[in-house]
């Protein structure tokens, strides 16, 4: 029982570190597209780890924590995709180091 709680707390700590990685990447990346990539992936993984860790600490709350985790994992990529596709169609500036842009090629051929 005690080991389960300690492993849950370690998972929560890992999730917090992944959220910190998301914040640092958001500060360091040069471009909006790279920023949304690092922010969405890392924050989704961080929240999923935190929820799993909390569910290990209190197993009676597993249902609601699992619903929150599933909800974040479904909606966060969708919202970021909608936002950045709209920005790309609007001609949002890219970093000058960008070498490949598949969405632009696809929209030219359509």
């Amino acid at each position, binding site marked *: 029982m005690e080991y389960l709680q300690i492993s849950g707390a370690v998972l929560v700590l890992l999730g*917090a*570190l992944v959220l910190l990685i998301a*914040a640092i990447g958001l500060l360091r990346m040069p471009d909006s597209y790279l920023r949304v990539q690092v*922010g969405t992936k890392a*924050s989704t993984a961080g929240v999923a780890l935190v929820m799993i860790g*909390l569910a290990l600490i209190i197993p009676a709350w597993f249902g609601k924590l699992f619903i929150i985790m599933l909800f974040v994992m479904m909606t966060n990529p969708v919202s970021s995709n909608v936002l950045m596709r709209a*920005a790309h169609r609007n001609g949002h500036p890219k970093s000058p180091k960008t070498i490949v842009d598949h969405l632009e090629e696809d929209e030219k051929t359509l």
Partner: protein
Amino acid sequence: MSEIVLTLLFIAGFIMLLALALTFIRFIIGPSLIDRTISFDVITVGSLGLMALIALLENRQIYLDVNIIYGLLSFVAVIVVGKYISKTL
């Protein structure tokens, strides 16, 4: 809960607060609307985890219901900003 579990949870909470503060810096200096919306999204998703942690420390399950509605509203907010910048709203 034992002492070591509480210590680890408090350290995790402070690390999450630090992450939210760093994201808020990007929210302030972000050159465009897109960067501010991204950092808003990361702030709300990070505060989902922080809020669930506070629900466990305060031992109140009602905060998890607040959490679900908060995540729903942040999702709708980002979708609305996407619709707005594609000039179809």
